[in-house]
């Protein structure tokens, strides 16, 4: 049905030509779901844009052939391509909220496509748009017709994007990271929906993702891409059990799975023995009846509804939940960047909930509670070098100056594995993993007792996530820190944490030792979360 041969895509940039895709070939059969897996910069999205001929300015298909049902996609006239897009080949995108026109009713956006491909007339467009909404299982489709994207949840927006893509019954659907940025249960719902629709309509599909586990669960065949070339392709189970190429082996290793230890995320040659960390009986942090209420435009919003838990010294606690469950609010209150509405936070036996967040920077305990932020890029000052960033807390809170400061910064860089020559670079000159290391170095600079990690690996590729997680494990043992690890990813939490707290709608629904909660969840919500996580096929033991 689709046949790609030696496809190469290049971009003209100010610094010369960049080859994003360097000669890839594959075929797609009717009814087949093909997964393209790779990390950022591997050229997987560019491949799909090239097939649709919607490359950004400066991008061209440099060589090769792409044929869809006898049509030469590379040489077809733009007018013909416009007829093919949406009617023959459709696409759904990541970040669904941004993928919809923010100021046009979703119903009208569906109608635009229907009318464009002459699937509806002015008279029946509304009815057909509503039918398209029903097809993607949107409740109360008639009311949703008049909604604007900002009124809908992320998962709902992705359903609308699907409705637009599927409105004209295309025969090939390209899904470009369709669930990135969505909650894990929403991810499952969207992926199940897409798979069901593809099967029902006998369509073919290409699923582009960075998540090998997700691809393995939903695809018939997987292609692993790296730096614009296909390094391996084959059956998902085969790729997982016996990856041939070193890169796909690295990816398979780095994908968190049930029954693996944190060291096994790393390539075999980097696996060192895990340093033990000691959990004391004495609690370091005790939270009692913590509440946070925001004043919303339509009445008060209870973000955190009286939660209590305690964290022992040296313990690593995972705080798990989906967006809006109050986990970020809780962590911000604990790190004293936000004031609680009521409740107590005992830190080392002293109540710190009463100290206003605004003045906490001048409190001596500031150095003892630190945070690693979610987005490694946005949480670094773009005008500060790595050295300045790491030196900042040492200088302000630690009072270090001159040669002592310089020595300490270099010690910290070595500790987090940041090569010293990189210290004088600015954030935009560093890779994602290096920026994460800078953020961690800054947080541990003052040897805090308590470190809050707010999804520190959410924006990272899996192989880098593996390295950063292992770094965190090492640091925990070396510095004797207590962690609160905030995440939506249960697999990751299980690898790192001793104790897990599951939150939903501002309340704690379940907490307990990580192994117990994972293997024998009590609450229905925890079960749902666990069930929603993609389950990669078990790996055959490699000696």
């Amino acid at each position, binding site marked *: 049905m689709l046949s790609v041969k030696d496809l190469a895509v290049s971009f003209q940039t100010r610094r010369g030509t960049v080859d994003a895709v360097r000669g890839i070939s594959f075929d797609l059969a009717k009814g087949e779901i093909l997964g393209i897996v790779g990390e950022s910069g591997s050229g997987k999205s560019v491949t799909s844009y090239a097939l649709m001929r919607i490359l950004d300015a400066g991008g061209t298909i440099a060589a090769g052939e792409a044929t869809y049902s006898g049509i030469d996609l590379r040489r077809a006239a733009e007018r013909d391509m416009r007829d093919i897009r949406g009617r023959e080949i459709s696409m759904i995108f990541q970040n669904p909220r941004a993928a919809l026109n923010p100021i046009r009713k979703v119903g009208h956006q569906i109608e635009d496509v229907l009318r464009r491909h002459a699937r509806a007339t002015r008279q029946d467009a509304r009815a057909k748009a509503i039918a398209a909404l029903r097809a993607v299982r949107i409740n109360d489709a*008639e009311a949703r017709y008049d909604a604007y994207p900002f009124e809908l949840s992320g998962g709902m927006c992705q359903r609308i994007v699907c409705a637009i893509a599927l409105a004209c019954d295309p025969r090939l659907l390209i899904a470009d990271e369709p669930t990135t940025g969505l909650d894990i249960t929403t991810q499952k719902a969207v992926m199940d929906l897409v798979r069901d629709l593809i099967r029902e309509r006998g369509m073919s599909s290409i699923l582009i993702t960075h998540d090998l586990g997700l691809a393995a669960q939903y695809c018939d065949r997987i292609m692993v891409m790296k730096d614009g070339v296909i390094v391996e392709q084959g059956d998902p189970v085969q790729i997982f059990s016996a990856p041939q190429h070193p890169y796909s082996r690295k990816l398979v290793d780095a994908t968190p799975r049930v029954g693996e230890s944190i060291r096994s995320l790393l390539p075999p040659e980097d696996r060192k023995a895990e340093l033990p960390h000691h959990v004391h009986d004495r609690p370091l942090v005790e939270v009692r009846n913590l509440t946070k209420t*925001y004043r919303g*435009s339509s009445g008060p919003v209870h973000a955190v509804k009286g939660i209590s838990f305690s964290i022992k010294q040296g313990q690593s606690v995972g705080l798990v939940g989906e967006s809006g469950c109050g986990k970020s609010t809780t962590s911000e209150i604990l790190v004293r960047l936000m004031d609680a509405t009521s409740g107590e936070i005992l830190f080392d036996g002293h109540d710190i909930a009463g100290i206003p967040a605004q003045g906490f920077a001048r409190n001596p305990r500031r150095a003892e509670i630190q945070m690693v932020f979610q987005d490694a890029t946005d949480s670094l000052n773009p005008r500060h070098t790595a050295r300045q960033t790491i030196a900042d807390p040492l200088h302000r809170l630690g009072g270090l100056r001159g040669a002592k400061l310089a020595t300490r910064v270099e010690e910290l860089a070595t500790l987090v594995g940041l090569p010293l020559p990189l210290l004088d670079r600015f954030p935009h000159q560093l890779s994602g993993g290096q920026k994460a290391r800078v953020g961690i170095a800054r947080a541990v600079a003052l040897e805090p007792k308590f470190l809050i990690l707010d999804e520190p690996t959410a924006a990272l590729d899996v192989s880098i996530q593996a390295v950063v997680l292992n770094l965190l494990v090492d640091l925990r043992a070396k510095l004797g820190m207590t962690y609160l690890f905030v995440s939506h990813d249960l697999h990751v939490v299980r690898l790192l944490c001793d104790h897990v707290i599951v939150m939903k709608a501002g309340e704690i629904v379940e907490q307990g030792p990580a192994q117990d909660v994972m293997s024998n969840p009590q609450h229905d919500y925890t079960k749902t979360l666990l069930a929603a996580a993609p389950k990669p096929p078990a790996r055959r033991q490699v000696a």
Partner: protein
Amino acid sequence: MSSGSIVSSTCARCRPVKPVSVAAYPRLRAVAFRVAQSIPVVIGVVVISFLLTRTLPGDPAAYFAGAAADEASIAEVRKALGLDKPLIQQFFIYVGDLMQGDLGQSISSGRPVATDLASRLPASLELTLTALILSCGIAIPLGILAATRPGSWVDHLCRVLVTAGVSLPTFFTGIVLIYVFYYLLGIAPSPLGRLDFIYLDPDRVTGFYLIDAALMGDWETWRGAAKQLILPAITLALFTLAPIARMTRAAMLTALSSDFIRTARAAGLSRGTILYGYAFRNALLPVVTTLGMVFSFTLGANVLVEKVFAWPGIGSYAVEALVVSDYAAVQGFVLAMALLFVALNLVIDLLYTAIDPRIGFSSK
């Protein structure tokens, strides 16, 4: 968080029974709120304009008593003008008059300030609006074209035109236009006001000559007024081209690189739909903001154009009044402008809510 209320309001809106009243009600309230918000602004303007005019250097009494006046006659004039009373009393007299719609008497023209403003404000508005319509007519398409083909000749042409328009002072452009079209080519009429003396002023309805003449059906006068208007309007338009074209280009570039444009392209929508239905509507918001700003500064700053074309506008009126410390006229001018800006901001806010459904939901 507030999804419940949103859902219910969207359901309410799509209910077939009188959807307008449901949707219009919060909007009406928003309008009323915005108007109420402007009341303190107006009060502040009244106070400040009063105080500022009093602190101006120069003594109006001495000025109007004439060069040969002695102490006694100056004091007499001062008394006649009411300037001998304490400041606070003068203020209350002023506010009291204002309440009755009396802006006072202009000393230089000898007519009530309200009458002067009523004749001069429409002249300025007619000129400014025509210039802005002209300017938008050129700048917006130019900006769109430049954004769709960045780096092409259209883009460069846009840049050259914009730079030229903004770097040439208006009085210079005005004089060049007069020299070429009036003196050399003889196409344009003499640059002396709003209407050549061979025509009679149209009956006053709005004060806009073009509209009044059209209402009367007097097309001869209409043509005469249009001829007078075109050169000063072009002069102003050239000056206002730059911000509008630049903002259109920038906003379109941002809109065109958005994710939803990629979705639209992937759905096979036509170029026109993508460009105008999707990108331009999203780019409108910053363009409207710029337009409001341009409108306010042109209205205040077109004194030079009014002077060059002997246009009986509000800008030249204010400058003349300021020179002779004509308190009532200056206060009247400042107040009129303040009210105009308040109204303008209101219109722009309302345009926002019309363009972008997200605004209005979040407003408290």
